């Protein structure tokens, strides 16, 4: 099946098997391997991307379902070579160790912080329930998201 979408601001189209998962399309067809696959039951959130402005787990969306949509992956988050404030915040707060959950964690956090510059600890913890990290114990991720949210100042 033919699919066309905008990924990180660039139009892409391809002929894919109908069963192709969005995450496999992004990784294998587009070579955007920043989006990681950490599970096969939609639990871990490593594969989180933005689809038409929402944070979604790209292992749970078929590529054909994303036809015509706007996708942002971790590779598309920086602007003009400048890291997004949430990326910088994860760096500053030591919100990552092995880095594998990090792209999904950051994509989820950007949406969580959107319009919420003073987000509370509880809201961060609740909002990231669907993103697993095995290294950090989440403490520094919570700090990072609050820091990033403040830096975003309510915008994206």
């Amino acid at each position, binding site marked *: 099946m033919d699919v066309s979408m905008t990924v990180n601001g660039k139009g892409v189209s391809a002929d894919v*098997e109908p*069963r*192709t998962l969005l995450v*496999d399309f992004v*990784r*294998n067809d587009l*070579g*955007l*391997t*920043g*989006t*990681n*696959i*950490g*599970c*096969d*039951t939609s*639990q*871990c959130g*490593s594969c989180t991307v933005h689809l038409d402005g929402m944070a979604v787990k790209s292992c749970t969306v078929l590529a054909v379902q994303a036809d015509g949509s706007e996708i942002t*992956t*971790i*590779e598309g*988050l*920086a602007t003009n070579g400048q*890291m997004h404030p949430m*990326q910088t915040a*994860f*760096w*500053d707060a*030591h919100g*990552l*160790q*092995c*880095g*594998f*959950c*990090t*792209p999904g964690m*950051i994509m989820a956090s950007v949406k969580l912080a959107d319009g919420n510059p003073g987000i509370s*600890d*509880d809201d*961060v*913890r*609740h909002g*990231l*329930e669907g*993103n*697993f*990290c*095995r*290294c*950090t*114990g*989440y*403490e*520094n*991720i*919570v700090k990072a998201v609050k820091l990033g949210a403040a830096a975003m100042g309510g915008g994206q």
Partner: protein
Amino acid sequence: MSRYMGTSVKRVEDPRFLQGKGKYVANLTLPGMAYIAVKRSPLAHATIRSVDTSQAEALDGVIGVYVGQDLLDGGASFACGSLPCGFTPPDIVTPAHNPVAVDKVRHVGDAVAVVVAESPYVAEDALDLIDVDFDPLPAVVDARGAMDEGAPLVHDEAPNNLSYHWPLGDEEATNDALADADHVIELEFINQRLIANAMEPRACVAEWDDATESMTVWTTTQNPHTIRLLLGAFTLGIPEQKIRVIAPDVGGGFGSKIFHYPEEVITPWVARAINRPAKWVATRSEAYITDAQGRDHVTKAKLGVTNDGLITSLHVTTWANNGAYLSTFAPLIPTALYITLLSGVYKIPHIFGQTYGTLTNTVPVDAYRGAGRPEASYLLETMVDLAARKLEMDPVELRRKNLIPSDEFPYQTPVALVYDSGNYPALLDKAEDLSKYDSMRKDQETARAEGRLVGVGFASCIEASGPAPSAVAVGLGAAIGLFESGTIRVHPTGKVTVLTGSHSHGQGHETTFAQIVADEFGIDLEDIDIVHGDTDRVQYGVGTYGSRSAAIGGSALVKSAEKIREKLKKVAAHQLEASVDDMVYDQDEGTISVAGSPETVKTFAELAFALTTADNLPEGVEPGLEETTFYDPANFTFPASAHVAKVEIDPKTGEVDLQSYAAVDDVGNVINPMIVEGQILGGIIQGVGQALWEHGIYDEDGQLLSGSMLSYAMPRADGFPSIAVDRIETPSPHNPLGVKGAGEMGTIAATAAVSSAVLDALAPLGIRHLNMPLTPEKIHKAIATAGNGGGE
């Protein structure tokens, strides 16, 4: 004066991870690559009658399908050998472990056949077309039950399913001391099976070069040189110099990526058989039934105490479940990393411990964060709490009475280890302050008076990190020495490449090792690159596990730096026409001058270049600037900790609310406080996970019931309060950095502390012990059985 050591330098490896540029194995695509999927046994124990691969082979896009015998025979590739065990104490039975099962399968997930296809989707499709005719056999899953008479045999060569028996200590003297004790606390309990769940599933890519007859293997390992050694010597039989193992960015390990796995044999075997690059990536479901799991002990313990709370003796018998095959270091964990830790931070005159290592129809068990040491600390802390309750003493007071005094180091325990340094009373004091222990106890009294179930848990624990020295480790049964290598290569421009045998998979070595080297020379951090994880770039090294990297890998770099400074002094002395003995290396400035004449200096970069032009060197000094050290430590290092947890239990639901957590750790000198704190925090949450939620549950047929992230309770962001961490520093006296391991201490203490808090909350109901995980269901049942519905 150091400029970087002891400071929270931001991690230099982070920008690539933050921007999705991590080089994980699964991200690698090579031209002409074929994709591997593995057919796995759905049964825990069965004879393989036949495997029909014809339909799978006929599927469009399938390149080949192979069974276990194909790998043993070799065919167009190598004849594969059995996966070896790397720790073999006396009289151990080590059954064969074929990369793909031949006659029998012995756990759910055991490999039965291998599909190679043009795409991963086609490879998966073909799995369903393979018809395996199994003859099911009864299974055994329980660590102790495996030794029961008439239990199904996992391997014919291991009678009673016993692989090894490992006793340590004077049993007679211990029994005498127990007989003389005023009180003997007895407990039988379980330390449950855990699943490591590193976020990156394992993966392997292999490429065979027909022209040079050499193999490159990219694999998710914590120790690439060990994997190369085992591939060369045992499983593939390719000469070691023809194998290159690359462990690029690895997404967490926690022990589970130490071991040599079947897929690391299958993938290169396939690459040669089809003469194309081949790739295998585990699904998470596969990870649950193939990654080596952790813990799984059944234990009987007896602790002797006097009326005034002095511990006199400890007798321990443990049945440790090793699963269906002995994983690479499996027998090491419940023996030399467990029984030897049974003295904890306490002065216990008589200790005897023994482990029966059994085989069962479950996924192999090996090191998982802490690896033996959390099992020891949980045992000891649980017993000490029971003693305190029996004697109606405050549990911290009883602990304090039994601590090894800070002036008795080095301290020889009755179970082989010699502790290097520590100050346990100071740890306890600081933990009491940080947690506001006294006021927590007062709050608890008030809460109890109101009928609320509030508990305070305390754990003071020891860790032996960086197993050493090599002679002792090998004497106990280790197949390789436990040193580490470090090369410092100074380039003509004074820029530096460091080649370390350690491997970073989240620990931040690219930052901390650069901090070490920068301060050794007085150069900028940005001028140093750390290279690890590639056997063709890095000299033989041992790798990263057992919280060893800073103490051993870091020390190797200090030694290499010393050699380089000595060489630079000789060159500077020659050029400044002074005696070498008068040369002063200023590690703040990165310069060398003659003592008393600080105005005339040679810089690090000038001297590095002088060794490149090589036209004005003293006699006997070779050109070039590169030094290597293989550092074999004199001893383990012994980090310690005191952690305090407070919980409240909802009597209606049995749910545990972890309300506060305070941790004071002593990991010796600290290179990067931010990174150390991160290690402690992450470790604590894994420990809390074991105490409250995580459990690899097998039914009696050997099916893993908690076999996915849906059913296995991984810690999530919303399960915790903010954690308070602090530390004291008693440097290790035997390594040049004075550091101790920091990677596992959090886990070692947290499991015990949180379990202690929950049992403390339940103690007024007469509940003496509950096995972990302390789930709402288990607690609710216990409360109901205790005849107290919580005021309802």
